[in-house]
């Protein structure tokens, strides 16, 4: 049997469309995913959302720069120096100097941090948000003003909170800035707990640091401004100085599902993934039907546990082909070696999904 001849006109059209795509370099991420636990620990010690960002739609690097500034593994030729931006925050517009990159259908994924409840009190959960256009810090912050996809989380910032955002440095040496649009944000509103106020400030820090890089979060401190001056407090939380991110254990839920997204439609089988920090790196998952009956369950092992933030996990393919179509709840939980006998129970995260 000989091959049918190719339609060379079509071949040229397809090659032309494909070759217009300029892939971002991800060798560093791949190496880190395949590397020893020791090196992975360094990477994920950032506690941020690099894998989530990479696992979603990291089409474009911030400031045209795909490199992670502190990775110890030099990838192929990368320029680790982001463009220097205007160091003085401006009261309106975005200080982020990116222009939308060329290429068909650029979409940037941002990791956005919302508040949600854990047995240990409110903590930050992240969601990946895909937004058309190039990477932009203010665009990321504006996601904090919009409701989370997962109804279990809550947005802590009212609409119109942010006027601009920027980064004044080179590499990781520099300061991220956020300019608030409303002086009333200085005080904690009635109805917001002190814990949520603290999380609101942290959510800006974590979201900005994640948005500032397509890879590892940029661990630059964040200074809050009102107009051109640093603001002394935000929601009653002291902010005179530039703030570093708090520790993952204090700030983040220790279980966070990245996929499936809330409301995702699945059929056949799907792989769930996320990040956690649980006992012996174990996570358990279950799928429950509308009546609350567990129809499937299993477990997965994360790439690490212990100090240093959250570690990626992913399940084996979960076969849902035998399930009746409908809405199910996917629950991911950290392992609880005491069986609930000690402490307040493990952190969990849930997603409603639709099985077709």
């Amino acid at each position: 049997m000989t091959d049918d001849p190719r339609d060379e006109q079509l071949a040229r059209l397809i090659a032309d469309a494909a070759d217009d795509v300029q892939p971002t370099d991800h060798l560093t991420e791949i190496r880190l995913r395949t590397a020893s636990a020791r090196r992975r620990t360094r990477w994920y010690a950032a506690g941020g959302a690099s894998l989530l960002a990479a696992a979603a739609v990291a089409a474009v690097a911030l400031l045209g720069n795909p490199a992670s500034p502190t990775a110890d593994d030099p990838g192929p030729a990368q320029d680790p120096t982001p463009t220097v931006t205007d160091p003085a925050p401006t009261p309106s517009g975005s200080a982020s100097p990116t222009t939308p990159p060329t290429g068909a259908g650029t979409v940037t994924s941002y990791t956005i941090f919302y508040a949600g409840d854990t047995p240990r009190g409110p903590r930050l959960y992240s969601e990946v948000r895909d937004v058309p256009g190039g990477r932009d810090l203010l665009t990321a912050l504006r996601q904090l003003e919009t409701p989370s996809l997962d109804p279990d989380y809550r947005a802590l910032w009212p609409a119109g909170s942010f006027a601009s955002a920027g980064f004044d440095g080179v590499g990781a040496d520099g300061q991220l800035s956020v300019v608030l649009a409303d002086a009333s944000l200085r005080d904690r509103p009635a109805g917001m707990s002190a814990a949520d106020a603290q999380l609101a400030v942290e959510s800006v820090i974590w979201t900005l640091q994640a948005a500032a890089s397509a890879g590892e979060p940029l661990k630059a401190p964040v200074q809050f401004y009102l107009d051109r001056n640093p603001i002394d407090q935000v929601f009653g939380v002291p902010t005179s100085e530039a703030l570093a991110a708090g520790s993952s254990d204090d700030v983040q839920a220790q279980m966070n599902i990245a996929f499936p997204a809330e409301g995702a439609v699945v059929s056949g089988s799907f792989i769930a993934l996320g990040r956690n920090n649980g006992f012996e790196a174990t996570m358990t998952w279950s799928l429950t039907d509308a009546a609350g009956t567990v129809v499937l369950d299993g477990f997965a092992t994360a790439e690490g546990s212990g100090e240093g933030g959250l570690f990626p996990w992913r399940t084996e393919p979960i076969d849902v082909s035998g399930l009746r179509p409908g809405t199910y709840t996917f629950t991911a939980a950290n392992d609880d070696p005491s069986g609930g006998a000690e402490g307040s129970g493990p952190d969990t995260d849930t997603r409603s999904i639709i099985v077709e």
Partner: protein
Amino acid sequence: MTHASTREQTVSESPSWSADEALDELYAAHWRQLVRLSVLLVRDTGTAEEVVQDAFVAMHGRWSRLREPDKALAYLRQSVVNGSRSVLRHRGVVTRHAASHLSPGSRAGGDETADAVARRDAVLEALRTLPERQREVLTLRYYLDLPEAEIATTLGISRGAVKSHASRGSATLRDLLADHLTGDL
């Protein structure tokens, strides 16, 4: 050169790369093309990069059984096609939603003519409208220039099926892209 025979033996075998070396070598040689392959299948560059990253991680884990660059490349291709298909099925709703919100105006032209940008969009959109198998077969045939037998192996279908998907897909694509087939590229 007392060790010449040993050296020759080593060289005549496939390169005895470690998994890490295989990753680096294959990444350097094939990352861009595999991402582009996936873009033809899933449309979105970021999603494609994710799919291909997963493929490289899987290849690295499997290197002790693959051991040869050709086998590893075939494995990567297969992983990319399967991963792209899986992503499309599981994220279908999200992807369609995102696509409907893409504004053509956000695609800055740079030094490209508007025609070239429109043509590339049209090609990617046309591929999206094809049935899954036709899209996969055409992409492997026209972009990677794989022989039919290798496409059959990659997709786990017969050569006859490859031929029929290619022929039907080409016909549809020619209709969809009629406006772009006459001009010069």
